[in-house]
Structure formats: structure tokens, C-alpha cells
């Protein structure tokens, strides 16, 4: 008797939900009346160049929304770090719980990466790639939330991944190169610095690698979201492929590259054959 009633209830719920979804989909696919703010070509162009939808930075300067994203990511990450520092770190135990294990894994991963690629002067590069890794990963995921900002033209603009902007990507590449360069000069003197300068293509390659990877994700995402018909189910796949995977891959690539080049810059003179070979492999 009771089972019979439950079954009826289930059938009713399924049918009800199916009708609602079908009607909603019909409305959306046929198209809601209303005008688009921009054409697909404009959206794509703006995705690459960020020349139209600009956001005012405290009224001082009109900047690309990616810079706002970058500030937002920094704010969120620092806030979370502060919370962890205040509430979690003092309660760390010798045998970690789940959360502690996750934090330890995060720090330990970059620490190990730095130690394995750069056996000398590991401390600094470990801290740097930890920050860079966390930044690249979470700023790429930031795109998924689709936070909105108001552009200077008064339209709504979705905050993109900071590194999908050419300026953000260049900043990342140049800064990583500077870190390696300065470390080379500081540890091995002029000779070490010159050895790093030999790889002058490094900042460009790092910048454009990350820019290209994230921009491609952005383009596909923009394309998908532009059309209502593609807004069902497809974003799940797109989000995972172009956001989550890019976040993981780009984080890993950038941190590995920085630690490898840093390790080479700070290692004592007379580098071994093995290292040269490794570097050659990564470049190709």
C-alpha cells in the first residue's frame, strides 16, 4: 500500500519536472525576444583584445575586466589564507585531518616540485611557485563563477580569467623571468645573470603559452554562452575541458618551468649534462 503510494508520487514528480524542463527549453531555444548587446564577432574580438568592455578602476583608470578579476582573486585568496592562518594552522595536529591534509598537500606539492627541480636555494622559489601556482589555478577557476561587473558603457560584463588577458599573462611571464634573472645575478653573479639572459625568449614563451591556453578556453566559453541553444549541458563539458583542465595543466607547466629555470640559474657553475638535457626536453 505504502509502496504503491510512493511509486505514484515518484511518477508524478518525474512527469512534472519533465514538462517544466521541456517548456523552458522550448521557450529558450525558440528565442526570448530582446536584443543582443553585441554580435558574435564583436564578442570574440573583445574576448581577445578587451578594447570595448572596459571597467573603471575606482574612477581613476579604465582597465580591462581581467584586472578587476585579478584583484578579486587576490582579495578572495588572501582572505581565505587569513582564515586558514587564524583558524586552521594553530590547530594543526601531527596526524592530520582532512582539511589539514589538503592544505599540507598543496604546500607540500609545490615544495617538493621546487626541491626536485632546484636543489639549491629552494626556499625562495618554493614560495614563489606556490603563490604563482595558487594564483594561476584559482584565477582560472574564477571564470567559472561568472561574476559580473559594470562596464564603462553601462553594460554588464562577465569577469574573465585574469590570465586570459594579454596584460595579465605578460605580467606573469615577465615577473617569473625577472625572479629567475635576479636569482641568477644574486647567487652566481654576472655570469649567472648572463646565463639566464641567454634564454630571453623565456618570458615571451611563458606569457604567450598561458595567454593562448586561457584565451582559447575563453573563446570557446564565450561562443557557447552566446547562443541559448548551446547553454544546456554543453557548458558542463566546456567548463571542465577548458577551465578545470587548463587550470591544472597551466599551473603545473608554469610552476615546473619556473622551478627548472630557477634551479639552473642558481646551481653552482659547471652544470651537468643531465640538466641540459632536461631543459632541452622541456623547451621542445
Amino acid at each position: 500500500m505504502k509502496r504503491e503510494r510512493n511509486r505514484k508520487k515518484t511518477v508524478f514528480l518525474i512527469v512534472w519536472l519533465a514538462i517544466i524542463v521541456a517548456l523552458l527549453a522550448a521557450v529558450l531555444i525558440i528565442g526570448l525576444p530582446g536584443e543582443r548587446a553585441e554580435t558574435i564577432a564583436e564578442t570574440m574580438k573583445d574576448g581577445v583584445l578587451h578594447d570595448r568592455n572596459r571597467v573603471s578602476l575606482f574612477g581613476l583608470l579604465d582597465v580591462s575586466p581581467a584586472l578587476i578579476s585579478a584583484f578579486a582573486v587576490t582579495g578572495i585568496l588572501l582572505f581565505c589564507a587569513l582564515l586558514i592562518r587564524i583558524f586552521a594552522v594553530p590547530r594543526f595536529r601531527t596526524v592530520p585531518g582532512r582539511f589539514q591534509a589538503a592544505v599540507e598537500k598543496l604546500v607540500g606539492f609545490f615544495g617538493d616540485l621546487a626541491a626536485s627541480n632546484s636543489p639549491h636555494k629552494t626556499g625562495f622559489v618554493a614560495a614563489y611557485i606556490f603563490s604563482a601556482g595558487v594564483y594561476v589555478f584559482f584565477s582560472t577557476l574564477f571564470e567559472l563563477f561568472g561574476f559580473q561587473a559594470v562596464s564603462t558603457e553601462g553594460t554588464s560584463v562577465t569577469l574573465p580569467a585574469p590570465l586570459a588577458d594579454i596584460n595579465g599573462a605578460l605580467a606573469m611571464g615577465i615577473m617569473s623571468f625577472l625572479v629567475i634573472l635576479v636569482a641568477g645575478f644574486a647567487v652566481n653573479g654576472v655570469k649567472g645573470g648572463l646565463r639566464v639572459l641567454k634564454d630571453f625568449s623565456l618570458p615571451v614563451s611563458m606569457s604567450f603559452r598561458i595567454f593562448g591556453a586561457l584565451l582559447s578556453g575563453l573563446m570557446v566559453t564565450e561562443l557557447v554562452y552566446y547562443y541559448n541553444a548551446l547553454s544546456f549541458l554543453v557548458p558542463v563539458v566546456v567548463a571542465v575541458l577548458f577551465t578545470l583542465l587548463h587550470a591544472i595543466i597551466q599551473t603545473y607547466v608554469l610552476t615546473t618551468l619556473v622551478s627548472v629555470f630557477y634551479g639552473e640559474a642558481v646551481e653552482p657553475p659547471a652544470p651537468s649534462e643531465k640538466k641540459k638535457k632536461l631543459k632541452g626536453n622541456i623547451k621542445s
Partner: protein
Amino acid sequence: MPLNIDIVQILLHMLNFAILAGGLTLLLFSPVSKFLEERRRHFEELERENAEKAAEAERLREEYERKLAEAGDEIDRMRAEAEKEAAETARRYLDSAKEKAGELVSGAEAEAEARKAQILESAQTEISELVLTAAQKLISSSGDEEHTRALYDAFLEEAAGEERASAERSDGR
């Protein structure tokens, strides 16, 4: 600039990242690294202590085994000593017992000899008393010859019986 590259924005991105990197290093990386390092050291310490304890235990075990073996030897030695001592004591007792027995036997022999002499002496005294009694009786009743003969016979018989008893007594000893 091509591609909308903007130096000011690049610098702003750098500033942003510099703030983030410093903050994350101070708030998260350094404390957690320190904690990990401390824990690593803690476990290394534990491992070292365990190894030391194991070595100590092994050393003690060896020492105890050695001591045990030594104690076994000691016990064997003591047992042999005790056995030797016991044999010695037993031999001494046996010797003294034998000596005592010899003394007792010779003492008894001497005593028996003395008693025999004493008995013989007392027998002789009795005989002389008997003779004396007989002589007195003879003197007092020297009537008829037949009576005298009877008396004489009686004396002889008594004397012989006395002699036999004395011999038997000395034989019994």
C-alpha cells in the same frame, strides 16, 4: 600598442601578484612549511630514538645472554664443588663411624674378658665356700659311713652343676 598591451595594466597585474605572493607566503606557505618541517624532524627524532632503543635492547639482550651463560657455568662449578664436598663429608662420616664401631667392639671385648675373669673368681669363691660347708657338715655328722658317702656325692654333684652353669653363662656372652 598592438593587442592592447598596456604597460600600466601590466604593472598593476604585477603589483596585484606581488601583494598576493607576499600575503600567501606569509599567511600560508611559511607556517605550513614550518609545521611540515617540524613534523618531519619530529618523526626523524622518533625514528632515531627507536633505533637507539632497539640497539640498546639488543645490547641488553646480548648482555643477559652472556650473563645467563656465565650463571650456567657458575652453577655447574658450584654443583661440582658441592658434590665434592658432600662426598668428602660422607667419607669423613664413614671413617668416624668405622672408628667408633672399632672402639665399641674392642671395648665390649675387654668388658667381656673382665666379666669372665670376675665370674671365674666368684665361682672359685663359691667352690671354696661349698667345700667349707661340706667339711663342716662332715665334721658335725660323722656317724655312719653311708651317710658320709651320700654327702660327698651331693657335694660333687653340686659342684659339677655349678661349674656347668658358669660355663654356660660365659658361653652366652
